[in-house]
């Protein structure tokens, strides 16, 4: 059975029908990517899964548990953490304070401390700058911080929204290395990306979303070879 099972969700912004019956699933241990153009509904899908938006129709199951029945803020307690688009670090708090806030949903102090150490191990740069205000970090460091903060919730599945956005090409590779590393340590990942080329290289499977509907669904390798995907998203003619 799939770990995360999204079935036929319809989400609206006021009267705008943003998601028109999106269905997807993510299995335990996978990296699944959701690619698509601007405004296709990638971020909306993630925000709906993480509870920030309520679907008018459809269900979202995590390990067989219906997530739509929980209040918004309790979604993270069920094991879903999000790295928001544009990183969303608390720019006026220090790096350490940001990381501590990531563990807000947990109360086991010893575990939290161990988790902090793990995050620092993964991102030594954050430890160096633990007392620095997050807003003064570079874009790449902020991305590390947002990722580390999400990991502090000890999620079963990590939702990442455009982690490579606004980063120098040389840093993008590092971001994807991190994604693979987190996945290897046992966290399932649902990745939304505009950088389809990189996303499809690290992912096991992928979905292509177009104007609020899933139009393609295949293994990452097949998607990479798909001529339509190549011309529309990979820039290959």
């Amino acid at each position, binding site marked *: 059975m799939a770990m995360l099972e999204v079935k036929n969700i319809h989400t609206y912004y006021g009267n705008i029908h943003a998601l028109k019956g999106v269905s997807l699933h993510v299995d335990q241990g996978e990296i699944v990517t959701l690619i698509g153009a601007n405004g296709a509904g990638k971020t909306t899908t993630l925000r709906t899964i993480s509870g*920030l938006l309520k679907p008018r129709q459809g269900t979202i199951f995590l390990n067989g548990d219906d997530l739509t029945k929980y209040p918004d803020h309790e979604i993270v307690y069920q094991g879903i953490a999000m790295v928001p688009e544009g990183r969303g670090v608390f720019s006026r*708090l220090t790096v350490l304070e940001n990381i501590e806030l990531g563990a807000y949903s947990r109360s086991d102090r010893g575990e939290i401390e161990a988790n902090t150490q793990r995050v620092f191990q993964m991102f030594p740069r954050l430890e160096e700058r633990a007392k620095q205000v997050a807003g003064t970090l570079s874009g790449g460091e902020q991305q590390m911080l947002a990722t580390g903060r999400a990991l502090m919730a000890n999620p079963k599945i990590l939702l990442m929204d455009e982690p490579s956005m606004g980063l120098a090409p*040389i840093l993008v590779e590092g971001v994807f290395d991190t994604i693979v590393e987190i996945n290897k340590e046992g966290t399932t990942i649902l990745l939304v990306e505009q950088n389809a080329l990189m996303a499809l290289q690290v992912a096991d499977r992928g979905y292509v979303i177009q104007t609020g509907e899933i139009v393609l669904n295949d293994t990452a390798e097949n998607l990479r070879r798909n001529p339509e995907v190549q011309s529309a998203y990979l820039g290959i003619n």
Partner: protein
Amino acid sequence: MKIKDGIRAGFIALGILIYLDLIGLPKTFGSSMVVTFAVIVFLFSLFSLRTKPAEAPAPLPSVLVNGLIIGVITGLGFALITFGFASLQAQDVKVTDVFAQISHENIEALTGVDKVALREGQSVVPGLTKLAGYFILAGVLGGVITQFPASKVLHIGDEEKRSSARYWLMLALPFLLFAFFLALRIEGVDIGGSEENSFGLVLIYACIAAALFAVREVKAGVHKIGFSALIVALVLVIPQLTDLKQNAILGAVMIFVIMGIGLNIVVGFAGLLDLGYVAFFAVGAYTYALISSPESYIVVNLPWFEGLNFWAGLPIAVLLGAAAGIMLGIPVLRMRGDYLAIVTLGFGEIIRLLLLNLRDYTGGPGGILEIPSPNLFGLDLGNPKGILYLGMAFAVIVTFFTIRLRDSSLGRAWVALREDEDVAEAMGINLVAIKLMAFASGAAFAALGGTLYAARQVNIFPDNFALDVSINVLSLIIIGGIGSIEGVVLGSIALIGLPEILRSVDEYRIVAFGALLVIMMILRPEGFLPSTRRARELHEADLDSPAEFEG
């Protein structure tokens, strides 16, 4: 050490001296105030010119020049102002009409020339020359002291070894002095608030010195209990030293401290701009009045109900205040920024209009009279000194709660809420719960202040709960430094002391606040004593700007 630093420190010190002069300290303490002022100049010079333990002291000529600058600015500035006042008085101009505390006693304390001699044309210049000389000497001396290694004790540093004995001695000092002072009182020696009260001043010095030292130690993370003990000692000592009027003013300051700390939770911690804070103050005051005054609607109409006393009424008023906070909180849960401010502003007015128009219950414009004063084990606290003690005790309790709240996970959640609601929610923070908690605790503190206010005033009227209270409380936390608890105390003292200085232009107080706020926002947007976090936020521009495209 640049000349600029010395000039700046000099003007700040001069400002403080003028403030202390205008609120009437020379009048209360007599000629020993000149020495006190000189000590303040000395401390200013010492603190602004000292160097960090790891650093070599600044070269002697540099600190001498800066000390001299501080001394000259304060000495000349202060002497000139006093000379101006004295000349006006020599020509029979009633300076006290504008500056209530600049009386003949003030001039006599500072220059040694009394009323009669002044009228007869005796010059104040020799007295003022001496005063300026003291200040200059004090400034230079402060600079010189920085050359001694011992002055580095003034700094907190991890590498510095702190001596416990020294610390406890400093803490014990005010207690010992307090005991001595009490003993004198019992012996019938008059030492409080009179002319030439040098002893009282010594006591205040000791307390302030110990407080400064203790704050330093606590900031370094040691001796928290000692610090609390020190605050208790200060609370016990101060009302004994001040006179009736000063006690009354300080009592008002304490009420504003309590409210400021409450509003600070809502605005400073959670970032929810509340312009109708007076509503909760009114709820507290009127609740207590309604259930305690023999004249109130409830007591008059319930034959079996004789009205509660202060201690029974207080928890009810505070609980109702918190309930009012939640009542306002629920409809504004989804509002942010400007919209929230407008709705809360309206809420404050609605409460006032209700009080004014529910004539049968609240007495309308006639208010509620004969509200009982607090009692403690048979001791009547219904006088300025009693109210001040009570106010200080409440302020300490409220501060304690607030510090605990700030350092709890709730406090962190508030900060996250202020920063970014959406991300905070994604972190698992229950926005509804923490917003209501902020409103409820802020409102409860305001209601506490309101209850104390009602007990202090004895009679309350709807006009006491107009918009200007909200504005005052907001102003004082902005001036003190949003989010900072020490700042609230400082802001209250500064702002509630102002009307006392500008008594004759009381109606224009709001204008003075306005001007002060504008100046503050330009010169020091984070307030006088900002929380470290707030200071960081507002000086982000001074740090290196984030470089988006580099590692």
